[in-house]
């Protein structure tokens, strides 16, 4: 057993850490939010130059053969900086899926563009009625000659506004919630019949409602086998849970440390409020929640990379814990900062908001407790 990073991994961590400290100060980050993209195109270029965009892709896809551990390292540092750039959406969720199941042509056409920083992707898996059930799919794809024709609606597609290509889960056979009969398609965002309603989300990221009206794609847009998409989708989401949990752990670390520092300097009743035992114990609990999440994160990520038979269960256990801890740490960081904690000006509220959405994305604690029990 070994919980240390190897030399290459330490190097990546130092590199990302330096980037956050040097190029991602709070004012700069805030200026990205109101820009057209919602993040920095220059930063994205930097990510490509530093090789981060290919970090988790296999070498045959033009990546660097990284593991979920490598992705975890990057995402944890991103969580500390509350990075807005859609690394999760483009690299982890979407490219990871194509890397896993795509045809050689799809890998060549799309992944090399992603690695070079020229292409943004999104994964459209949720529907208004589906909640967290990946197999609840009403969007349909019908074979017509050499094409598939897609009709349906996808909700809260993260990074939808900036995606050049969108991966869509659609039903090609069976009933609404059947596990079999789901297929995955790569759809050009400019396709006729495809429309997006774009908006900002509460964590200052971007998403879209996606409507598909007789969108025609060639059969070569199918990712993997017909009717067998759920398995691929599920494993892509599982890897994404590991990544977003790493982001959460990074954000939790910043929040508990910021809170501890604040209570050392904020004086009331003639003493720093950090001297009050009731607040000390609260912060101890925040710290312990963070440590517990980190332990589950390491465990589940290693199990995933070792293809352990209980990796799925470990991932649901992790997401359950991360959901609960995100809420507790976020809420208490705000509470202990008092009025300042609820201002838009202070970074604490922004970390709190991102931890709030992370609690829901890919399924909340209730959902993953059920999945954990069922596996």
């Amino acid at each position, binding site marked *: 057993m070994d919980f240390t990073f190897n030399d290459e991994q330490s190097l990546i961590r130092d590199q990302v850490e330096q980037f956050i400290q040097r190029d991602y100060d709070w004012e700069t980050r805030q200026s990205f939010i109101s820009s057209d993209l919602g993040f920095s195109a220059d930063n994205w270029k930097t990510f490509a130059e530093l090789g981060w965009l290919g970090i988790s892709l296999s070498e045959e896809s033009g990546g660097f053969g990284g593991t979920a551990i490598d992705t975890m390292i990057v995402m944890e540092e991103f969580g500390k900086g509350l990075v807005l750039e859609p690394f999760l959406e483009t690299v982890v969720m979407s490219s990871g899926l194509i890397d896993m199941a795509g045809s050689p042509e799809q890998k060549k056409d799309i992944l090399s563009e992603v690695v070079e920083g020229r292409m943004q992707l999104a994964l459209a898996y*949720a529907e*208004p*009625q589906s*909640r*967290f*059930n990946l197999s*609840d799919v009403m969007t349909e794809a019908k074979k017509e000659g050499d094409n598939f024709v897609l009709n349906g609606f996808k*909700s*809260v597609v993260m990074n939808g506004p900036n995606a050049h290509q969108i991966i869509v889960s659609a039903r090609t056979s069976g009933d609404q*919630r059947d596990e079999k009969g789901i297929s995955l398609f790569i759809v050009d965002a400019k396709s006729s019949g495809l429309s997006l*309603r774009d*908006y*900002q*989300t*509460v*964590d200052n990221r971007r*998403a879209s*409602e996606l409507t598909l009206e007789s969108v025609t794609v060639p059969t070569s847009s199918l990712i993997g086998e017909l009717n067998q998409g759920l398995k691929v989708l599920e494993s892509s989401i599982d890897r994404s849970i590991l990544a977003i949990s790493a982001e959460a752990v990074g954000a939790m670390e910043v929040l508990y440390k910021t809170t501890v520092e604040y209570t050392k300097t904020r*004086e*009331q*009743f*003639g003493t720093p*409020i950090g001297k*009050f035992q*009731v*607040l000390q114990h609260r912060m101890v609990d925040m710290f312990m929640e963070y440590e517990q999440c980190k332990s589950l994160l390491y465990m589940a990520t290693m199990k995933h990379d070792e293809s352990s038979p209980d990796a799925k269960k470990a991932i649901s256990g992790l997401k359950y814990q991360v959901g609960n801890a995100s*809420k507790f740490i976020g*809420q208490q960081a*705000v*509470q202990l900062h*008092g*009025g300042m*904690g*609820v*201002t*838009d*000006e202070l970074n604490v*509220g*922004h970390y*709190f*908001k991102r931890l*709030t*959405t992370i609690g*829901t*994305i890919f399924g*909340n604690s*209730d959902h993953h*407790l*059920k999945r954990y029990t069922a596996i």
Partner: protein
Amino acid sequence: MDLSFSKEDLDFRQDVVDFLDNNYPDDIKERQDKRLPLDKEQNIRWQKILSNQGWFAVNWPEEYSGTPELTLTQKYILQNVLAEYNTPVQLPFGVGMCGPVIYTFGTDKQKEQHLPSILNSDVWWCQGYSEPGSGSDLASLKMRADKEGDHYLINGSKTWTTLAQHADWIFCLVRTETTSIKQEGISFLLVDMKTPGIEVQPIITVDGSHEVNMVFFDNVEVSCENLIGEEGQGWNIAKFLLQHERSGIAGISSLKRELSRLRDLSATTIVDDGNLLDDPSFRAKIEQTEIELTATEFTELRTLAAMSSGGSPGAEASILKIKGTELQQTISELFVEMLGYYAHPFFTENELGSNESIGPEYAGPVMPLYLNRRKVSIYGGSNEIQRNVISKAILGL
């Protein structure tokens, strides 16, 4: 001990229902039903409607309100029916806070000047308590009021001042003397917001709204006639007022309405081939919240009953503050949980009014409310401070 309503009580209930059926304005109802904030004019208009009926300053003695005081049961019924109709929550600063201070501690002249305009909602009040360096430790406040002849000269700043952007007057705690016991040098002063030297600066909160403000005072001249009570009596007045604030803060009847709405909407929220209300873990949270809410409702009723037979709301009011605010937060959190991904699209208040919603019709204001409600365990004396009050005053620790 008896929980039933008399025939008179039931008649009163019918009166309230009839009144609301005929007098609750459509435009206000529409904003309320969509969970959108009211503008200043709408707030004032609604308060005037209640006031004309004698149902606005229900806690004021008849001498000042001009209408016979309702019984405890009638107040309970009124609150509940108002909440069932989802009418606007009363803004407490004038009628709930400044009014009682003036009729309890003020001079005849002050009563004459201010009470009628509070009763008619002609003057909008805000509260100048917290300062950047004085939050939980309110008594450490530094804003100075130095006596110069017939007026005070005020210098300093107040923060978290709710809706100061609309206010005509502010009631302030100021330091008139530097004393070894910091509470003894505090005085209670009324200030016209139009006085030269006052500047209001917005604070934007995590939900993107402008509700609270910083208020700066730079050599602001205030007549000594605006002092309430004696110099140095401000802290006792503040304590009196905090107890009033706490006993009204729980807002139990609105929470009952919110919880029943949560229950109804969760039954329409699809989960696989069923709905969210049938989901055992979500259902359990709703039922647990209902039990806690019922307990808090009856704790409030017991406290009010003790008050109406001559007691004053003491540290028991802290229980209501803690439980009431925790319930507000829990319920807003369950709404977020119910929405799943559709809690994430985010629009400002203005956008919400003019845009079609994303996801279920009720989705838009849900996340902003959750974020906004983080403040309720902080303001009005943080819940940590309230627990200190209970531990000292009730448990004797």
